[in-house]
C-alpha cells in the first residue's frame, strides 16, 4: 500500500457508462443536490481528480482524491411530469457519489 495519502481513488467510470447517484446521508456538507439523488444518468465527460467537497469543507487535505465526471440526465428522469422527452441536464459529481447502473 502506498504511503502517499493523497493518491487518488481509481476512476471507475468511462464516458457512456450508465450511473446512478447514490443516496447517502448528508453529514454537515455536500454539493450533491437532492434532485439528482437516486436518479440514473450517463457519464458525459471525465473532468479532473480532486478532493471531495465533503473532505475539503473540513480541510482534510490528505484525503484521497476522486475522479469527477459530468453526468447527463434526461429531464424526464429528474422530473416525471417534464413534457419534453429530448431535454437534458448535466451536472458534475465525484466518483464516490456514483454507482453502476444497468438500465
Amino acid at each position, binding site marked *: 500500500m502506498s504511503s502517499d495519502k493523497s493518491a487518488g481513488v481509481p476512476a471507475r467510470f468511462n464516458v457512456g457508462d450508465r450511473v446512478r447517484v447514490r443516496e447517502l446521508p448528508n453529514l454537515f456538507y455536500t454539493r450533491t443536490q437532492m434532485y439528482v439523488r437516486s436518479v440514473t444518468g450517463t457519464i458525459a465527460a471525465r473532468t*479532473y481528480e480532486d478532493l471531495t467537497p465533503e473532505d475539503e469543507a473540513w480541510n482534510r487535505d490528505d484525503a484521497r482524491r476522486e475522479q469527477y465526471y459530468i453526468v447527463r440526465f434526461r429531464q424526464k428522469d429528474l422530473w416525471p411530469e417534464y413534457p419534453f422527452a429530448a431535454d437534458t441536464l448535466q451536472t458534475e459529481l465525484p466518483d464516490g457519489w456514483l454507482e453502476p447502473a444497468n438500465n
Partner: protein
Amino acid sequence: MSHSHDHDHEHDHEHPAAPMVEEITDFEVLEIAVRELAIEKGLFTAEDHRKFTEWAEQIGPAAGSRLVAKAWTDPAYKARVLNDAVEACKEIGIDWTEPTGSGTPSDYMNLRVLEDTPTLHHVIVCTLCSCYPRPLLGHSPYWYRSPNYRRRLIRWPRQVLAEFGLLMSPEVEIRVEDSNQKCRFMVLPARPGGTEGWSEEQLAEIVTRDTMIGVALPRAGRTADDTRPVHKARRPVPHETEARP
C-alpha cells in the same frame, strides 16, 4: 429642564432616520474582518486591496465575446476551445491564473465551452450559489445569483427562457448545465445568419453576455451597446421648470 426642551427632545424621537442600506450579511462582516486583520498583519495594504477590487470589478464579458467570434471564424481555434478551453483562452489574452497565480478570480482552473448546434441549446446555472466563468464574462448579473433563477431553471428551463424573451422550438434539445463543482461553463452560441463575411470585431459586438449564459441568442444588428427601449408615460407629469410661465 424646560418644558420646551422636553418637547423638542420627544419630537426628535418621533422621526427616527430610516435605514439607508439593507442589513449587512454574515459573509460581508467576515470579509471585512479578515481583510482588516490581513492589512494589520501586513499581508497587503488597503491600497493593494482597492486596486485589486477596481481590477476585478472592471472585468466584463468582452473576452468571452472575442473567444466566440474567433471560434466562429476559425474552425481550428474552435477545436482547441472545445479540447482545452483554459489553454485556448491564452490566445485571446486571458490567463486564468491571473493575477495571483492560483486562479483568482476564476475560483478554479477548469473551463468547458458548450457548443450550441441547430438542434441543441445550452443554458448555464449554479443551483448552489453563483459559479460563473469570471475571467471571460466578469461578474455574474444579479438575476443569475437569485434563488428564483437557480431553483426554476433546472426544472422549467423553457418557461424561464421564455421569461427572458427566448422561445425555443420543441424540436431543439434544451440542455441545462448545473455548474456547481470546480468546472466553469460558457455557452458557444451558433453563429446567426446575416453575418456572412463579417470580421471578428464585427461578430464580437453581437455576442452579448446573455448569449454566453444561454438566455438569449445572438443576432445580426443587436449589439451589447444597444439602448434600452424607452416607453413614454401615458400621463406625463410636467416638470416644475416646464410648468413655469
